[in-house]
């Protein structure tokens, strides 16, 4: 689609905030339009990066599980980690990536809880490795708030 979606989204943001909202007489409606315009602004970035973020997270969680397989004693968890580590994203649709992301994140929660309870020689390293991933993932998903100054 041309003009590019992010360009259109940012244009809509400006129009809604600067032209439409000030001309609404109903106070609550004006506030709602302001909120909607900010969400459209955020969607401009998200449209471009959403698949990339999810594909990167899924690949990183699988890599982490591949490393953890060697460190975990629990046979059942070990088997599920090994299986998940072999997976791949069959589709780049956001809905498909989200579904896979949710399954991987659920396993990550279990792995992290397991690492926290463990005092084995690799537990500290594994816990640190998981936190590195979670911090990186949270920063990667950071949303830009529009500058209203």
């Amino acid at each position, binding site marked *: 689609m041309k003009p590019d979606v992010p360009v259109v989204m940012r244009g809509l943001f400006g129009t809604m905030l600067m032209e439409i909202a000030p001309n609404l007489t109903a*106070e609550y409606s004006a506030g709602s339009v302001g909120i909607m315009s*900010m969400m459209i602004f955020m969607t401009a970035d998200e449209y471009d990066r959403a698949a990339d973020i999810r594909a990167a997270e899924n690949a990183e969680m699988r890599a982490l599980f591949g490393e953890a397989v060697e460190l975990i004693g629990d046979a059942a968890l070990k088997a599920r980690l090994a299986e998940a580590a072999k997976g791949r994203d069959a589709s780049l649709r956001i809905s498909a990536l989200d579904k896979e992301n949710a399954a991987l994140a659920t396993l990550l929660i279990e792995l992290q809880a397991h690492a926290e309870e463990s005092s084995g020689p690799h537990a500290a390293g594994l816990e640190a490795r998981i936190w590195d991933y979670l911090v990186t993932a949270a920063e990667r998903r*950071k949303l830009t708030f529009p500058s209203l100054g």
Partner: protein
Amino acid sequence: MEDLAPRIAAYLAHRMPAASHVEVSGVSRIPGGASRETYRLTATWKEGGEQKRRPLILRRDPVASLIETERDVEFNAYRAFHPTGLPVPEPLFLETDLKWLDRPFFVMEQIENCQAGSPFNAAPYGPLAEKIGAQFWTHLGRIAAADPAKTGFSSNMEAIAPQDCWKRELDKWEKVIDEDELMPQPVARAAIRWLRRNPPPPQPRVTAVHGDYRTGNFLFDGEGEIRAILDWEMCHLGDPLEDVAWAADPLWAFQQTERPGGMIARDEAFRLWEEASGMKIDPVRLRWWEIFNSLKGLAIWISSGKEYQSGASSDPILAFPSWYCTDVHNRVLAHRLAALSREARA
């Protein structure tokens, strides 16, 4: 939009038997207090041969909301603190009979010629920040210092022992996440485990907790006087440091950790709170409540996202925090918990 004016006028006439010719005008839904629909209006009537006029606020239960709260608890908080001199609007009528406005509501005094600062603004109070900040933290200290039984704040609340406060709040908000999460939440789950492994040291006593005391939830006038502390819908009995930590949460005013909420310096803020409350801030307990509050924030934003996604409401005020505020609190918690994990393993 439904015409509420004649229905509100009929209700006010019912509640004010000495009044005649009751009329309501200027009914306008206003932003703020996202757990209930909030309307500004003006009532006029005749009483004792005189024409009377009073600007009012009406807060009605919503079809769906950011958080589910009991309106009688909120109303009672206004009733408890208004006579103490704390800047709180006068509560007037609480109504649970659905025949008047289809849903329960309450009516209170409208504080005119004031504004609320935006929590999503780096400088929400501009040149008034110092003056407002000093009042903000002193008022919070006064809330903590007030005896919940003497003020009547606790009259419709279940009693709780000091050592149980943290667990009750954590259980409550974990349940919200359990019920409402739309996707797995690794950071929230890690926070819950940390909070349970590291309970806070005992608090000296149980106090009134506002529950949402922050930038944006009070009104100030052009001179920088705080005129109304609002949005008591999450108030409860608990640890006063819960309010301190929420007021200083990094979400407000874009993570100005050294100038919480875009007001005054953190050290001065805490000094004023200690002075007004007569209590000391235990840093270990405060840390627990800081982490708890970021988790509580996540629970609220997750819950509001569920309301929107389920179709219970199409109000964007429910969708926006589920995007933006979830993002901020996830990052805040991830960094904080990662550091605590490193410390614990060192």
